């Protein structure tokens, strides 16, 4: 009986192969339709994009930015080898300030530098606010004056001028951060043309620069990585198959996956985030796997069964491969969806969702467009590849796997114990895993921006800002000395915290003003004690200063004030301490009924952004593990099997965590994505392992025998699968984006661990615990040893192709020529080859036309007989065979007629009609069930149709021996269906035929069912020539299962009577037997 699922799949893929153009047209249309949205794709490489728009920290930060006119500025450092306080140094600061002010998107009033800031000095009238310097500094005296002024203005020490006086900053606020990237580029190009005195350097850094440069940096990286990935994959494909057609198609599928995914992102208004850059590379790695598997299966079929039509090979390959491909797609998509469900940051959510979509698109195109294109391209298998495929055997890799298998079988207990210990140790180590993220660490240390950041943080208070917004609850509340003192205390506290190098607020200006008004007495560098005095200070300042000078420190009605704290470290783990301590300080010692303060700024935002990363990662990992368990448990219909399947990935994740601890790789934005990918890819090893062991185990009932078969076949295939994945993700190792680099390494590590655990711990656990699910057969099970061999290569899904890659890479290559047949001929040397015998049988002359009377006797196990008399007509129209059979008696079935068109193409179903007189209609019947029994007889439709011959593409043939029967030497020919599907279609697992070499007529045949139980015996008698053609006149077939037998007796056989085509028409069936 056919497996309905397989039959449906065959029907489906046959339809695709028969309608390639419309499938390809639709496929291309979809790519174009989705791809047409790509130009609308918006890019969002801002750090803020990692937080949802409604995140409270983000909303508050934006509010603060608006109130105080703050942004993520561009920070330019002028660094001198000696002091900056020289005419050249100060003039350079002035020149850079002037140049930056002219740049688009730079706020001309938002530039802070020595050339823009004012000194506060006491005068007789009170206080004067004057620039540190104006125009050009012409001599050292002027420069020294500036130096002295700064020395008297502690606020600018460390913030505007380096503590060692060798550098000065120009801080440029931007008008619109959307254009950070362009502004950064413009500043770079502008400053590059600026003449610098010898010994001077310019560095550009700051949050504005980081977010500005990150976009182009990652773009450039992607533009470099994607072609490398594509080139590597193209190379693998070409090396694997030596054919451009397959290489082209795999690339088209990659393009489809990428274009449709990115197009859908654009169409749904989802922007392209920083981490989205990893998507195409990952898709390239995953998408190509499907094509590799399919082509591998296809080329293997073409190599092994060259007589089979291309269409049949494609359909058979697809039928064999759709299931494992679907399965791995499901598990991979489940991994990415875990990320989608658990992530709280929009870029991660969308990354998970769209990568899952891309994986599914690749799957869809591999199942639909690939076979359609294959049927058009008709790419032939390369002769070298064909030769190597035919000479399959245990190469070096298989031997390695066998050795590993032997070790595992010998030390199952030890392995399980070792893993148990390793897991405990890993769990302990993994608990030390740090969550950390430093955006500057995204850049490679050789990047100018990275170096600029280091320089600025070394010379100044730091380029990382934390804002503390003080709310005095009423207008002019900031003037209250109590509030100001609290702010001063807060600043002092902040400066005790690690990495905090300085802070700026209105308090510092007031202290400076107080000092200025007290004749510059350093002792008077303190806050005024009277509210009115504070108000007067501001009034005095406004008399000579710019109205916007305090814009960044206090709001217009003096209710809100900002304290900007500078840190010289942007790492989350370090900032976390500062933020949390400050939050505690504010809650316990600052906030009261009159005044309160809230944290804001980039450092606070990063803290909120990253602080949930760990939790989100673990939840995502949990969901991905659950989904992988669910898919596996459903597949194997066993919850326990799901747990076994999960063991390798769970172990690998744990090991990766501890490795990250050991290598000091923190869990950050890039690395946190690894688990989703590792689970999706890693679980495949376990699934294939369990599936194969389950399929092999029932054959022997012995786990050791099973494993001995498992390691050199599936184990070997999985090894190559691992190598393929490693190559795909290996490309990321060349990335200059450090988190992506780490991501590539970690994924490679975890997938390798999954493989290793699947090959060692999993079998060891099965040996030790003997889980029940191993003994349960499923629909996936192969039917016999030979079919199983096919199933190993294909169903395990893992690249036979990759097997071919190795073969072709020249690694572990085997013998050169067709050993497949050599082994047969050495075993039975005097015998002709099996296939040759089958060809002789098929070559027996049948005549063009044939008319005969056929008596059928159907006898059940109780010897109850049923008789039918029929008239048969058969004619060849070219290579197409048409047969019609009319029932003559008994009257109950009289005029029942059966017409069949048997096409020469092996992959084309016959067309069949059955005329039922009760309906008076010839109705179309399905011809795909070749193994169904013909109208109640013990012959199948295929038996009737083939008339004692073979469809060569259905079987592997082998000549076994000669037997002497009734004084005749007969050749015993063994025919074994080429694969599980064919066996199921035919209903036979094996056929032994005794062939008379004098006329090549089969005179006896034994049939076994797909489970290798004896099924039927055919005996052919009364073989004699009619019109010079050897003709079988009496056939008896006994069904051993039912006890039923059928006898056919042919009479009045006539090969001479010409038959018109009219007899073989559907209409003729309604007319009764032709007379």
């Amino acid at each position, binding site marked *: 009986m056919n497996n309905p699922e397989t039959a449906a799949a065959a*029907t489906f893929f046959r339809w695709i192969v028969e309608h390639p153009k419309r499938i390809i047209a639709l496929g291309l249309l979809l790519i174009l339709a989705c791809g047409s949205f790509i130009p609308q794709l918006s890019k969002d490489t801002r750090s803020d994009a990692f937080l949802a728009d409604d995140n409270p920290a983000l909303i508050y930060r934006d509010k603060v930015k608006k109130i105080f006119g703050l942004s993520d500025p561009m920070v330019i450092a002028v660094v001198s080898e000696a002091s900056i306080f020289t005419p050249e140094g100060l003039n350079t600061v002035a020149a850079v300030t002037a140049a930056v002010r002219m740049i688009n998107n730079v706020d001309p009033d938002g530039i802070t530098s020595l050339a823009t800031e004012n000194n506060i000095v006491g005068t007789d009238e009170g206080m004067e606010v004057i620039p540190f310097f104006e125009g050009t500094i012409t001599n050292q005296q002027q420069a020294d004056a500036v130096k002295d002024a700064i020395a008297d203005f502690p606020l600018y020490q460390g913030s505007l001028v380096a503590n060692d006086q060798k550098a000065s900053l120009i801080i440029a606020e931007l008008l619109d951060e959307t254009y950070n990237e362009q502004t950064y580029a413009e500043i770079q190009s502008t400053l590059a043309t600026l003449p610098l005195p010898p010994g001077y350097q310019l560095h550009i850094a700051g949050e504005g620069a980081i977010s500005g440069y990150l976009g182009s940096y990652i773009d450039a990286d992607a533009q470099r990585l994607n072609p490398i990935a594509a080139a590597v994959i193209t190379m693998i494909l070409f090396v694997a198959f030596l054919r451009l057609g397959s290489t082209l198609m795999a690339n088209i599928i990659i393009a489809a996956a990428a274009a449709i995914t990115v197009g859908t992102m654009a169409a749904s208004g989802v922007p392209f985030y920083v981490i989205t850059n990893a998507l195409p590379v990952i898709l390239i790695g995953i998408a190509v796997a499907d094509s590799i598997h399919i082509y591998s299966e296809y080329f293997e079929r073409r190599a092994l069964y060259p007589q089979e039509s291309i269409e049949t090979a494609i359909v058979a390959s697809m039928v064999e491969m759709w299931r494992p491909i679907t399965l791995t797609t499901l598990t991979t998509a489940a991994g990415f969806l875990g990320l989608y469900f658990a992530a709280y940051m929009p870029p991660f959510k969308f990354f998970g969702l769209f990568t899952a979509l891309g994986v599914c698109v690749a799957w869809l195109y591999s199942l639909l467009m690939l076979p359609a294109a294959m049927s058009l391209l008709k790419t032939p298998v390369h002769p070298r590849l064909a030769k190597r495929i035919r000479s399959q055997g245990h190469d070096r890799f298989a031997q390695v796997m066998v050795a590993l298998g032997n070790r595992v079988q010998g030390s199952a207990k030890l392995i399980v114990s070792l893993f148990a210990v390793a897991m405990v140790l890993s769990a302990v180590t993994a608990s030390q895993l740090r969550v950390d993220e430093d955006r500057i660490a995204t850049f490679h240390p050789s990047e100018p921006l990275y170096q600029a950041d280091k320089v600025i943080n070394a010379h100044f208070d730091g380029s990382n800002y934390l804002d503390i917004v003080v709310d005095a609850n009423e207008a002019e509340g900031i003037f209250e000395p109590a509030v100001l003192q609290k702010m001063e205390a807060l600043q002092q506290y902040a400066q005790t915290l690690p990495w905090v190098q300085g802070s700026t607020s209105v308090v510092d200006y007031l202290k400076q003003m107080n000092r200025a008004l007290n004749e510059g007495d350093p002792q008077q560098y303190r806050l005024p004690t009277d509210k009115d005095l504070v108000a007067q200070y501001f009034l005095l300042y406004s008399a000579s200063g710019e109205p916007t000078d305090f814009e960044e420190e206090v709001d217009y009605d003096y209710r809100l004030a900002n304290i900007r704290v500078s840190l010289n470290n942007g790492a989350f783990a370090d900032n976390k301490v500062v933020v949390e301590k400050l939050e505690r300080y504010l809650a316990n010692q600052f906030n009261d009924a009159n005044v309160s303060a809230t944290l804001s700024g980039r450092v606070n935002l990063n803290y909120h952004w990253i602080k949930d990363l760990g939790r989100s990662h673990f939840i995502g990992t949990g969901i991905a593990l659950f989904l992988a368990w669910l898919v596996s448990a459903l597949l194997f219909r066993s919850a326990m099997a799901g747990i076994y399947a999960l063991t390798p990935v769970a172990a690998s994740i744990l090991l990766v965590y501890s490795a990250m601890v050991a290598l000091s790789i923190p869990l950050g934005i890039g690395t946190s994505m690894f688990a989703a990918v590792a689970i999706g890819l890693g679980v495949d090893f376990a699934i294939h392992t369990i599936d194969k062991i389950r399929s092999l185990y029932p054959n022997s009932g012995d786990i050791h025998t099973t494993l001995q078969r498992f390691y050199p076949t599936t184990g070997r295939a999985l090894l190559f699968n691992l190598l393929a994945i490693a190559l795909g993700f290996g490309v990321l190792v060349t990335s200059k984006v450090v988190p992506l680099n780490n991501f590539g390494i970690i994924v490679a590590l975890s997938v390798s661990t999954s493989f290793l655990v699947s090959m060692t711990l999993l079998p060891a656990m099965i040996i030790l615990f003997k889980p029940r699910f191993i003994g349960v057969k499923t629909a996936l099970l192969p039917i016999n040893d030979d079919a199983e061999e096919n199933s190993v290569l294909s169903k395990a899904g893992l690249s036979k192709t990759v097997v071919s890659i190795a073969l072709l890479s020249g690694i572990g290559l085997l013998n050169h020529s067709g050993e497949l047949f050599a082994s047969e001929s050495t075993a039975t040397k005097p015998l002709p080859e099996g296939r040759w015998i089958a060809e002789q049988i098929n070559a027996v002359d049948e005549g063009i036309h044939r008319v005969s009377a056929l008596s059928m006797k159907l006898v059940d196990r109780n010897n109850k007989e049923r008789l039918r008399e029929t008239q048969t007509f058969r004619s060849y129209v070219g290579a197409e065979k048409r047969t019609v059979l009319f029932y003559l008696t008994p009257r109950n079935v009289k005029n029942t007629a059966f017409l069949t068109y048997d096409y020469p193409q092996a992959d084309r179903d016959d067309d069949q009609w059955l005329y039922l007189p009760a309906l008076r209609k010839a109705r179309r019947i399905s011809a795909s069930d070749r193994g*169904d029994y013909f109208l109640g007889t013990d012959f199948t439709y295929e038996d009737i149709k083939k008339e004692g011959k073979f469809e060569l593409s259905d079987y592997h043939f082998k000549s076994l021996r000669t037997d002497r029967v009734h004084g005749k030497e007969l050749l015993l020919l063994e025919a074994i269906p080429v694969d599980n599907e064919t066996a199921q279609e035919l209903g036979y697992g094996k056929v032994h035929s005794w062939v008379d070499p004098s006329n090549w007529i089969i005179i006896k045949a034994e049939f076994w069912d797909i489970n290798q139980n004896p099924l039927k015996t055919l005996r052919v008698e009364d073989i004699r020539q009619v019109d010079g053609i050897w003709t079988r006149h009496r056939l008896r077939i006994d069904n051993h299962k039912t006890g*039923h037998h059928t006898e056919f007796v042919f009479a009045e056989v006539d090969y001479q009577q010409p038959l018109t085509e*009219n007899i073989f*028409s559907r209409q003729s069936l309604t007319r009764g037997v032709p007379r």
Partner: protein
Amino acid sequence: MNPQATASARTLQKWTLLGSIFLSLPLFTQTALAAEVSGLLKSQTAFSLQGGGLQQQKWLLDLEYNDALGTGQLTAIGRLRFDTVDDLNPSRSARAESYSSIGGPWLSGKHVDAGLRELYWQYSAESSFWQIGKQQVVWGEADGLKLLDRVNPQSFAEFILDDFDDSRIPLWMINAQFTVAENATLQLLWIPDSSAHELAPEGSVFAFTSPTLVPTPVPGLSPIIDMAKAPGAIFKDSDLGLRFSNFVAGWDYSLNYLYHYVDEPVVRAQILGADLRVTQQYERSHLLGGSASTALGNWIVRTEVAYETDRYHRTQTNLPGVIEADQWSSVIGIDWQGWTDQFVSLQWFQTYIRTDSDDLVRKPRENTLTFLWESSFFNETLSAKWLQIHSIDHGDGIFRPRLSYNYASNVDIYIAADLFYGDQAQLFGQFDHADRISIGLNWGF
């Protein structure tokens, strides 16, 4: 001429015709093939599930004679029907009227019918085939309900429960088929026999009562009913059929045209003075349609579409009680043969009356589903079948389970049930009272 005299004249004509054919047979039997006689005896006993008693105890004997005649082949099938109970046919008064002068049975009584079922001569030439005589021609792909299968009328004495092969009324016709290309055939039918459907007599178990099919009585008026009369002119009233069928790229398709009298009379009512006069008249229609089928692996897809002009449909308004409108019908069927010895079929029928009138008794658009499952066991000796027809729009339908056993080569026995359900005003629901269980025997010899 009085009806009795007409019937006698017809009977005489037929006996004369048949007698002369049979007498002439020996003259033509000088061919290689010997004359061949075979027979089939069918018996069916049906028990009414509502009344509890016998609904039917029928014996049907078909005798078939095949012989060469000239350069062709003659087939004659005679039928004798005998029913000991026959609740289905309490009177045959209406029966003869639906037959043409050349189409009716020879004998028709309460318990016995006898007649020439089929009689035709076949002749095959290189690119043509001729079948001349009384015969059945079946068009279309649909099972169970008829769209294109309109060439022969049908007996509704047992509604649609009888085998179509038995209930279809063979007609005298010339059936010529020409091979016009490889696999392409053009069929021409000229049908001078205008016999129409035979409806179950009023008061019988399967008499139509649904208002969608028959007029509802007007209270206080006793109708005067004119019986329908089959059109009688051989040439003027003959039907013409044309079918082009072909097989291309795995698809069988046909294009069909039939110019014919619709086989059920149009019933019109009018008030003449104090009387309500009900007239019944056969009306012509053009039937245009096509059918197609193909196999897709284990699946067979079948479809059929028909467009009929000038159909008459019952209205809610009593007078005249019908309106004329064209009608579309279509069916899409899929058969599944994926499992050994199993056959599953699903069909979706749809009819659409092209009218804006909201006066129709039935809905302008109606949908019916059929489901068929057949399974055979033990080398096809035992077979089980389940057929269900269900009206989506009215919720009525019929279940038809059947179990049959091939007792010997030539003997089949079976047990079956026909179970109606639904609103009694609807097509199937109207027979809700007619549920039955049958046992039967088919014996070939």
